[in-house]
């Protein structure tokens, strides 16, 4: 067997990403929802009973279709005001602020007296379409066609377009449903042993807790039951009556059964199932009639208790067995036979993606719809022989629910932020956003363990890419090798394992129950098995042969973990799995001929999976695997081989060259900064209407690249430039992470970018036939701003192209009818006076009008979008960063002749300070510098892939051959004095990113300006022309210095100075009456002696607010001493 080389691994991964793309998880989940999820929700409801008093009938719900019954449109479409419908591409939705959604129709059949009437296909609403999913037109198009449709051919899709804005459903990382987690609560004096489960079935989630309390008895909490129930009582209620039956449901082992003694004591007097149900009934519905109590208790155990097993009385026995297993584990824990489960182990986590989340929404919306249909039909009653169901359907219920939830991220039940606006800073930030994961844990609590990197995250989540601060470790990103399972039917898998020698739980004999391994499918105990290890082997072999779905995973736990052997089979959705090469007898199954087939295109990635060369392991099965990192390490004990080590990183971290040479937090910082770097975020940016965007003028492919850049499309949409960087202090202008730029480099176009902002205005139509109008407002219009602001408008009220605009200039002139009735001044002949509601440039921004889009919104009103561009040449204070978490702002721009130079005429573009390096240990940057230099001289990029790259030794050798010192440093001469520097200067080519924090967006100063209406103090914030806060500490400083006059100036004269009139007689506020031309105190009248007092307006406000609270603040005045 020859080695699998770096190139081979790369080829393999290329095949992987070509087939899967980077947002497969979203698309798979959404497609699954469209194919099955929708229908499942319909089937849950099944039929709508219409309870008309004289002739009740039903409406049977049939199959759901993605089609508009009227026009036969089967994809995303738009409805115009005149009622015509036509298919649309996403670009039209973005431009016109539409929702990219497809019609859904449902077969409905009225059933009268058991006779089915004609089936009607009824349009029930629109469902938003995920871009590049099955329903999206884009998924069918070639690259050329995509471009013709106005799309970026490399856009990943996986998001929605709602009201013109792009929204992502961020995946939720949840504790696995239907899995028992046992743990120990040591807060009290004696430990409490507990087993928890989130029993989840479609649309219902119940948290069941089983506790072994210090009194040695077991209790269970069930939702809907106010108090905890004794374990034995519940078991009896579930139909196990005799003590023996109950004890055997838990375990056949005597030690464990003995531990139940105290639990049995708690259930004394409750001997039969009926007693037990009554016992529960007494707690659920205390003091009610017996019949009602029994009914309530039965609903509690059938509907609320372990609903995932079943929600009917038939499943009670299964529930009893499941509960027995839970109790068994808790007892084992107490007896020290078992460890607590690790909540953070990734086997206990599942991802909830777009599919299940949309299904939740659809369920709620559809239930509302059926309720509405029922109401409407009952209202109509039976009028004629023909019932038209379609007349009773209001499609808005579903459409609006989807649209509202996606647009706001509001999922109901307090779940907010489920969708986010897609990050379009650059290509990397978009991809990373689509692969983000959020944990529902509170960000205000510490949750230290949950935030930690867990060993099982290897290959599933990126170890580096997580935000700093409150969300640290809670927001994660998928690793490149991560794949999410979509699930397979567990019944099928159960049949398979039964045929392979697993004895179903009801058929197992005592000996097997005592000694055999317990077998679980999706967390439920299904049977026993005498040779689990062999069974697991056999299972895997069959899966590799394609006889069992590749979606299923099996894990065997030997007696090392507990006293019993256990076998877990998983086939649910949302498990994060990763592909690995199978190794047998010390040799990998992947052979050179397979690589060849992949290379020639004869085989695809899927063929490797089908042929049992590669398989996916979930975190649980990986516990059984022994994985070699490198081909050369493979030994007979190994079961698997990594495809490539660098796939453990996420999108952002895998763009860092030589990342393994950096201190790890630096890689995390860079992962965060890569998302702020300017580049070309999409090639169709000229057609797009993002409200703000940046493009870099001359983006460059990095000279030091990484293996996955190509697959991620980084080389096609890079976000940075290769700069000659010298490490040297420069006159103190690069202290504290500042960087010095070469003026000539900037003049030649280095790091130039353009900022685009889009301003939008719509011609709304109001009730009563009034309309907005785009026009050049005439002087005298209410709110007219002055002639000069409208000077650039053309007669249609829209500004001309290429006009140079500054803050306050009107871009779109518009007049609107008055807002309130009182604004109507009597009945004017000309009609109501109009208000000026023009759209103007933001204050403090300048630019040139770049493009104007005139279109029609979904409501049929005229919609105008104006794009303004502003060229951004790097200036003092703009922020830059290398790819190693080394960020800095420009501290000085130096003319070329003053910059240090080498005898070859090399003048650095950037000078960074050497002090930025030692404490941060970003050695990777040095190696990148060396590699960049080599690459630029030899004319071929250097591979800097983390863990598998051209080593610094090789680079140094190459440099000497190319005529450079092996140290990477060079002899420099001072540009100012001309003298040679004593020390050689480390210089090389480093890829620098321009980050979107620019001085032009932040610079702010104010002398006088706006004040707040309420307090008359200066406003806050740059956008409102606010003042700079003179805060407490600044105030303390002036007090400390005794600078009373300055203090008074800042806090009073230049803030909210106000002359207040006080009646010295009563101490309350008086005022000056303009009509009487005198000072008045309403309390004292003639006795008043009124004096002016200068106070802060906020103080006056305080006095009045106190008065409104019935407190009488009086001011006692005294002459100044």
């Amino acid at each position, binding site marked *: 067997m020859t080695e699998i080389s770096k190139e081979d691994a790369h080829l393999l991964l290329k095949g992987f990403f070509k087939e899967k793309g980077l947002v497969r998880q979203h698309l798979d989940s959404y497609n699954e929802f469209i194919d099955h999820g929708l229908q499942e929700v319909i089937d849950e409801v099944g039929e709508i009973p219409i309870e008309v008093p004289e002739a009740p009938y039903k409406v049977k719900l049939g199959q759901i279709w993605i089609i508009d019954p009227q026009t036969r449109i089967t994809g995303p479409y738009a409805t115009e005001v005149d009622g015509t419908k036509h298919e649309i591409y996403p670009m039209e939705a973005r431009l016109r602020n539409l929702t990219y959604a497809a019609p859904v129709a449902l077969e409905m059949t009225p059933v009268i007296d058991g006779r089915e009437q004609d089936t009607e296909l009824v349009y029930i609403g629109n469902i938003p379409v995920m871009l590049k999913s099955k329903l999206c037109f884009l998924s069918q198009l070639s690259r050329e066609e995509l471009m013709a449709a106005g799309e970026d051919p490399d856009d990943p899709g996986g998001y929605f377009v709602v009201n013109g804005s792009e929204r992502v459903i961020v995946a939720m990382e949840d504790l696995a449903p239907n899995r028992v987690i046992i743990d120990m609560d040591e807060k009290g004096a004696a430990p409490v042993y507990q087993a928890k489960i989130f029993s989840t079935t479609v649309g219902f989630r119940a948290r069941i807790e089983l506790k072994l309390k210090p009194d040695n008895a077991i209790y269970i909490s069930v939702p809907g039951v106010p108090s905890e129930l004794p374990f034995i009582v519940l078991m009896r209620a579930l139909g196990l009556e005799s003590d023996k039956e109950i004890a055997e449901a838990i375990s056949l082992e005597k030690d464990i059964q003995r531990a139940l003694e105290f639990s049995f004591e708690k259930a004394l007097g409750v001997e039969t199932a009926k007693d037990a149900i009554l016992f529960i009934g007494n707690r659920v519905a205390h003091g009610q009639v017996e019949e009602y109590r029994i009914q309530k208790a039965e609903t509690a155990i059938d509907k609320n208790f372990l609903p995932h097993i079943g929600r009917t009385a038939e499943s009670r026995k299964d529930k009893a067995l499941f509960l027995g297993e839970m109790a068994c584990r808790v007892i084992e824990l107490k007896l020290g036979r078992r460890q607590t489960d690790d909540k953070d182990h990734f086997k206990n986590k599942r991802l909830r993606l777009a599919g299940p989340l949309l299904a939740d929404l659809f369920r709620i919306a559809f239930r509302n719809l059926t309720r509405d249909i029922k109401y409407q039909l009952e209202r109509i009653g039976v009028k004629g022989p023909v019932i038209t169901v379609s007349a009773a359907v209001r499609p808005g219920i579903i459409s609006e629910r989807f649209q509202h939830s996606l647009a706001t991220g509001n999922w109901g039940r307090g779940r907010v932020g489920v969708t986010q606006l897609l990050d379009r800073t650059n290509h990397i930030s978009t991809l990373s956003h689509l692969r983000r994961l959020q944990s529902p844990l509170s960000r205000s609590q510490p949750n230290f363990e949950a935030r930690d990197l867990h060993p099982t995250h290897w290959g599933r989540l990126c170890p580096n890419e997580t935000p700093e601060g409150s969300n640290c470790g809670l927001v994660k990103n998928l690793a490149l090798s991560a794949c999410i399972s979509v699930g397979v039917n567990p019944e099928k898998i159960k049949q398979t394992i039964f045929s392979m020698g697993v004895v179903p739980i009801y058929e197992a004999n005592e000996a097997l129950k005592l000694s055999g391994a317990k077998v679980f499918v999706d967390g439920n105990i299904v049977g026993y098995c005498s040779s689990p290890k062999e069974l697991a082997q056999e299972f895997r072999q069959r899966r590799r042969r394609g006889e069992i779905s590749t979606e299923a995973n099996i894990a065997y736990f030997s007696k090392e973990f507990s006293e019993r052997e256990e076998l877990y089979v998983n086939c649910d959705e949302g498990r994060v799995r990763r592909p690995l090469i199978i190794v047998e007898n010390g040799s990998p199954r992947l052979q050179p001929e397979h690589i060849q087939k992949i290379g020639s295109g004869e085989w695809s990635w899927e063929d490797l999976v089908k042929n049992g060369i590669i398989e996916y392991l979930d975190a649980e099965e990986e516990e059984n695997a022994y994985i070699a990192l490198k081909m050369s390490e493979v030994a007979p004990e190994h079961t698997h081989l990594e495809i490539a080590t660098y796939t453990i990183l996420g999108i952002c971290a895998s763009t860092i060259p030589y990342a393994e040479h950096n201190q790890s937090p630096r890689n995390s910082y860079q992962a965060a900064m890569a998302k702020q770097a300017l580049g070309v975020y999409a090639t169709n940016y000229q057609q797009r209407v993002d409200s703000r965007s940046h493009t870099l003028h001359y983006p460059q492919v990095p000279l030091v690249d990484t293996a996955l850049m190509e697959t991620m499309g980084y080389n096609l949409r890079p976000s940075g430039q290769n700069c000659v960087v010298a490490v040297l202090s420069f006159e103190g202008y690069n202290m504290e992470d500042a960087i010095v730029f070469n003026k000539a480099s900037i*003049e030649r176009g280095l790091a130039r970018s353009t900022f685009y902002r889009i301003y939008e205005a719509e011609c709304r139509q109001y009730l009563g036939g009034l309309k907005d109008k785009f026009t050049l407002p005439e002087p005298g219009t209410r709110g007219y701003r002055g002639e000069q602001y409208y000077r650039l408008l053309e007669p249609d009220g829209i500004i001309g192209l290429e006009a140079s605009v500054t803050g306050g200039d009107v871009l779109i002139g518009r007049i609107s009818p008055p807002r309130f009735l009182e604004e109507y001044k009597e009945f004017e002949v000309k009609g109501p006076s109009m208000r000026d509601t023009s759209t103007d440039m933001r204050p403090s921004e300048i630019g040139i009008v770049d493009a104007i889009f005139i279109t029609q919104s979904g409501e049929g009103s005229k919609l105008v979008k104006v794009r303004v561009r502003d060229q951004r040449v790097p200036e003092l204070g703009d922020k830059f960063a290398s790819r190693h978490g080394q960020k800095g702002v420009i501290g000085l721009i130096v003319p070329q002749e003053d910059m240090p130079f080498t005898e070859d005429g090399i003048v650095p573009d950037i000078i960074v300070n050497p002090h930025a390096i030692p404490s941060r240990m970003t050695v990777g940057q040095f190696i990148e510098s060396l590699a960049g230099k080599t690459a630029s001289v030899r004319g071929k990029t250097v591979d800097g892939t983390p863990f598998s790259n051209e080593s610094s030794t090789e680079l140094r050798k190459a440099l000497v051959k190319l005529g450079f010192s*092996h*140290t990477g440093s060079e002899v420099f001469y001072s540009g100012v004095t001309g003298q040679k520097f004593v020390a*050689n200067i480390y210089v090389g080519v480093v890829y620098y990113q321009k980050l979107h924090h620019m001085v032009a967006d932040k610079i702010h100063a104010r002398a006088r300006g706006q004040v707040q209406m309420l307090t008359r103090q200066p406003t806050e914030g740059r956008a409102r022309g606010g003042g700079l806060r003179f805060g407490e500490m600044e105030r303390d400083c002036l007090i400390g210095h005794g600078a009373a006059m300055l203090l008074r100036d800042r806090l009073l004269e230049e803030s909210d100075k106000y002359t207040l009139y006080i009646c010295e007689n009563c101490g309350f506020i008086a005022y000056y009456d303009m009509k009487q031309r005198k000072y008045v105190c309403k309390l004292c009248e003639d006795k008043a002696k009124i004096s002016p007092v200068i106070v802060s307006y906020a103080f006056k406000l305080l006095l009045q607010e106190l008065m409104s609270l019935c407190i009488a603040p009086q001011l006692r005045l005294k002459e100044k001493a």
Partner: protein
Amino acid sequence: MKIEVLEKDERNMRLLIRETDVPYVNALRRIAISEVPCLAIGEVVIIENSSILQDEMISHRLGLIPLKTDLDSYNLPEECECKSEFGCNLCRVTLTLDAEAKEGTRTVYSGELVSENPEIVPVSDKIPLIKLAKEQRLRLEAYARLGKGKNHAKWQPVSKCTYKYLPKIEIYSKRCDGCGKCVDICPRKVLAKSQDKIEVRDLMACILCQDCVKACPQNPKAIEVSGDENTFVFNIESTGALPPERVLAEAVKILDKQLEQFENDLKVKKDED
């Protein structure tokens, strides 16, 4: 001061300058970069632009095209008699461009600029300006004027102007055991080993990096490298706007003028006192 021409062609010039000092050579270098004027497009009137590049980006690209400069027939705008903001025939050259992609996507090169003075043309015809897609058109009028590198890099007549100290290498044969480590490490192949002795093969190639010194296992070192601070290897590479010798001559002229000016300023000061 003695100057010896080591190499010279249309664009490059390498000189050996003896018996001078660092400040003088550095002053020449600085002036060549920042003070010697040359022509570059300073203003552009865009008549039609249906390409995807913005006007400012196109004008920036135009500005960076090096133009063949005739220093004798043109004046610096600030020194020109016309005193006009727009310039006159003596301080301004008009270039026009009218490019349209009729058949399909094509690249517009600098050679398509039409100059009113056939002498003043881009140094190279092959500089890509812009890519036009079918039916896109670019029409503009550009005004080239003389300017100085200190105002904008486009007015730099040199792409490289640099020097180094003349290297001096001493090998102490007594201490040298001829291990050859210094030969292997030298990036410019300055040293060579013949029999057991190290010899300087190409002194001028030495970049003073001292790698050979650091590599020498002897203590004290058997090799010593230093630079002569009064002898320089001076290197000029022109953008093509002016011949390199002209750049140097102009630089000397400007330096003399500046020194004269400085002297006068000093005299005036003295008189005032």
